[in-house]
């Protein structure tokens, strides 16, 4: 695995300069040409100006994690290089406008603007860039035609033609650069899907039967909202842009009550406003699915950056005590799968279910072989005249009816209530109801999504991670390929299976890897299992770990 070949391209420029278009087109062209592709971006909290960058990795084997190294840097504005200085090595080739790149070692001055203008307008600069990159990787020309056609088809033939011309022009230039690019193509990659984290979550939700979203825009969670809105007509999804997050969460709960499968998509600050509603969901046992795309806090923090700082937030959200389920996907496949599963679990266990992602995961693109169709499981019953919404059962789960379906009435109450949902202050009923609700935790554990071990099964050193960091950690461990070293990834971070303890107690040294300042998952493990969790690799500058960085940290920890 150590010889995995990766060619890393970074595009850097101001917001509004079209890096995203280049990313979109070029990753598709690369993938359709048979390369494994990975792309991730980082951007400032502004619509124009500033400095953003996108990393695109082209590789023979699948690669799905941020790398520090840059083989080829394309700079579109003047302060790009300074921001990336510590990622530029002696081997980095830098392409860009002469006055931006001239002072650099391996620089190739190319004026995208000039070339574009020579084609009649400055607006083709991005197309020229796409062409140059396509030339470098030796992309298939028929693929380029198709991708461009698809992308611009609604704009008419002229636009298509002009862009194609610009790309071909760039393509020729790219070829002539003779850049040392030695990645193998793989025919099967063409059949893959290319998608990003937001799309994976949205597709997962749809597979899980989602038919209602109410949300209030907030980076980085808006994209999931937008994806579901796009799918509204095709899949019959009710879409409500709420006046605030409180409305959004209460609507989602109301929607579940009425028989829908509803989600809210938000970030930490927006979620902080939903906590009372989460408690309501816990009490009335009407589910809610929450997608929370994490970004660095506190407060507004770094609104377009990444962090894993809101595990504690969802773990303890809402006043009072009640069960909940928290998923944290590492990969797009997992984001898809868990987002679907969230709806089945929510329906079955009648608790709030969280899908915890982050900006890094949501904005990461790559080719994915296959997303399985998930069976939508519904647990709604038809009510009878004497229906009791909160029937005391051994499992703690009471059959859930919805209004208008059956002869009964469905009565839910945020006060403590009896089996009929009627308000009560009887201390015995209170205790029975608390116990009933809490019993559901055991049921959830019976179907827990198990942690995943990777690496040497006879490990002495065990690295522990969750969410998007796990994927980066996995590639680091894979590439280091050291004996006695393994990792465990937790797709379900709460509740945790008993088996966790066995995994951990087998290790000589356990190290937690998280993207937050306090090691929130380590704290949870310590709370649950009492083991020493003091070895922690933490990062909280708003940027993801790189594989290189983690490799070093792992070596230091051994």
């Amino acid at each position, binding site marked *: 695995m150590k010889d995995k070949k990766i060619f890393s391209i970074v595009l850097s420029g101001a917001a509004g300069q079209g890096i995203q278009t280049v990313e979109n087109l070029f990753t598709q062209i690369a993938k359709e040409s048979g390369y494994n592709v990975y792309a991730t971006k980082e951007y400032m909290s502004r619509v124009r100006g500033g400095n953003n960058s996108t990393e695109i990795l082209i590789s023979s084997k699948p690669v799905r994690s941020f790398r520090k190294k840059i083989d080829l840097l394309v700079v579109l504005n003047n302060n790009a290089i300074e921001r990336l200085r510590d990622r530029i090595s002696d081997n980095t080739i830098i392409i860009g406008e002469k006055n931006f790149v001239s002072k650099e070692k391996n620089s190739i001055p190319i004026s995208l603007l000039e070339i574009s203008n020579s084609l009649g307008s400055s607006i083709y600069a991005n197309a020229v860039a796409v062409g140059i990159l396509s030339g470098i990787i030796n992309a298939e020309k028929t693929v380029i035609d198709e991708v461009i056609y698809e992308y611009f088809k609604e704009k008419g033939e002229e636009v298509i033609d002009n862009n194609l011309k610009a790309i071909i022009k760039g393509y020729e230039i790219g070829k002539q650069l003779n850049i040392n690019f030695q990645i193998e193509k793989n025919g099967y990659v063409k059949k893959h899907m290319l998608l990003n984290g937001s799309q994976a979550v949205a597709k997962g939700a749809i597979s899980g039967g989602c*038919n*209602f979203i*109410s949300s209030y825009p907030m980076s980085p969670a808006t994209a999931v909202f937008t994806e579901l809105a796009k799918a*509204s*007509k095709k899949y*019959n*999804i*009710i*879409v*409500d842009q*709420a*006046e*605030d997050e*409180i*409305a*959004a969460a*209460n*609507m*989602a*709960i*109301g*929607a579940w*009550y*009425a*028989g*829908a499968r*509803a989600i809210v998509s938000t970030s930490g600050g927006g979620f902080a406003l939903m906590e*009372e*509603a989460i408690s*309501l969901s816990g009490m*009335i046992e009407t589910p809610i699915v929450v997608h929370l795309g994490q970004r660095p806090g506190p407060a507004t923090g770094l609104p377009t950056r990444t962090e894993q700082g809101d595990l504690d937030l969802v773990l303890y959200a809402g006043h009072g005590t009640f069960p909940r389920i928290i998923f944290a996907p590492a990969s797009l496949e997992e984001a898809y799968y868990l987002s679907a599963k969230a709806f089945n679990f929510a329906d079955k266990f009648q608790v709030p279910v969280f899908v915890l992602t982050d900006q890094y995961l949501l904005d990461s693109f790559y080719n994915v072989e296959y997303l399985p169709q998930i069976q939508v499981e519904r647990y*709604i019953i*038809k*009510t009878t005249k004497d229906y009791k919404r909160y029937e005391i059962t051994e499992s703690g789960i009471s059959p859930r009816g*919805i*209004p*208008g*379906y*059956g*002869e*009964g*009435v*469905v*009565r*839910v*109450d*945020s*006060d403590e209530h009896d089996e009929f*949902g*009627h*308000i009560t202050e009887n201390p015995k009923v209170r205790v029975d109801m608390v116990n009933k609700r809490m019993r559901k935790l055991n049921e959830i554990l019976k179907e827990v999504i198990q942690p995943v071990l990777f690496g040497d099964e006879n490990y002495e050193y065990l690295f522990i991670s969750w969410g998007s960091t796990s994927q980066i950690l996995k590639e680091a461990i894979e590439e280091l390929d050291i004996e006695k070293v393994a990792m465990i990834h937790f797709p379900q971070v709460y509740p945790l299976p008993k088996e966790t303890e066995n995994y951990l107690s087998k290790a000589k040294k356990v190290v937690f890897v998280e993207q937050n300042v306090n090691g929130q998952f380590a704290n949870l493990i310590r709370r649950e299992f009492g083991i020493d969790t003091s070895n922690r690799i933490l990062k909280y500058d708003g940027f993801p770990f790189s594989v290189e960085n983690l490799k070093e940290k792992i070596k230091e920890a051994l």
Partner: protein
Amino acid sequence: MFSVKIYDISNSDIAWCPGCGNFGILNELKTAFSELELSPNQVVIVSGIGQAAKMPQYVNVNMFNGLHGRTLPVATAIKLVNPSLIVIAESGDGCTYGEGGNHFIHTIRKNPNIVNIVHDNMIYGLTKGQASPTTPKGVKTTLQFDGVFVDPFNPIAVAVALNASFVARTFMGYTDLTIELIKKAIKHRGYSLIDILQPCVTFNKYNTYQWYKENTYILPEDYDPTDRKTAFEIAMDTEKLALGLIYLNESKEVYEDFQPRIELF
């Protein structure tokens, strides 16, 4: 006409004070349901928290007794998901105009086909007598010892300003008027506000049964509720409160008409 009895809850101990205006509203609501022959499983009452919000505890229909201030988002969602249900969002003045003020203004904009019944006792009843948004200026309360010193919220004027589709006010002591308005609102397509003036005999010693009678008048039969300017003028008058359907805008589009239908069972 259905019997009012079918909406009764067995063994329910009603938690309101003797003489409270809420009893009247309870009867008016049940009577309106029975006159419209609504079967219990067809109706959902969504309420918040407060004395008024206890209402659905005493009515045998579907109930969503949720959070303080959050009736309208829940009711809107239920209606979107299952438009065949009759959805009533019912709560107090504090719940609807205080904690829930943002939902109030934005639900009017969305215009889902729901009925919003506000028990307006001009006080926070359940928390023992603090000023609510509608407490008149100068009234002394259990928290405002020197009397309220901010202007009261004018729900009718705000609803008209937002071009709401059905804006009514009534006094619970006028049973027929109240029943008629509830029925009209249920039959109206779009968001309907009914602000029901209600005495709180325990904490509001100012806005009594007597006070409401003396400070209100019923709009004449020939009053045309479709003129927005007139409606606003009427709404502006806070000396003498008009009762009846103050503003009606039947041209407004309904929220759920823009949304897909989803399969429920």
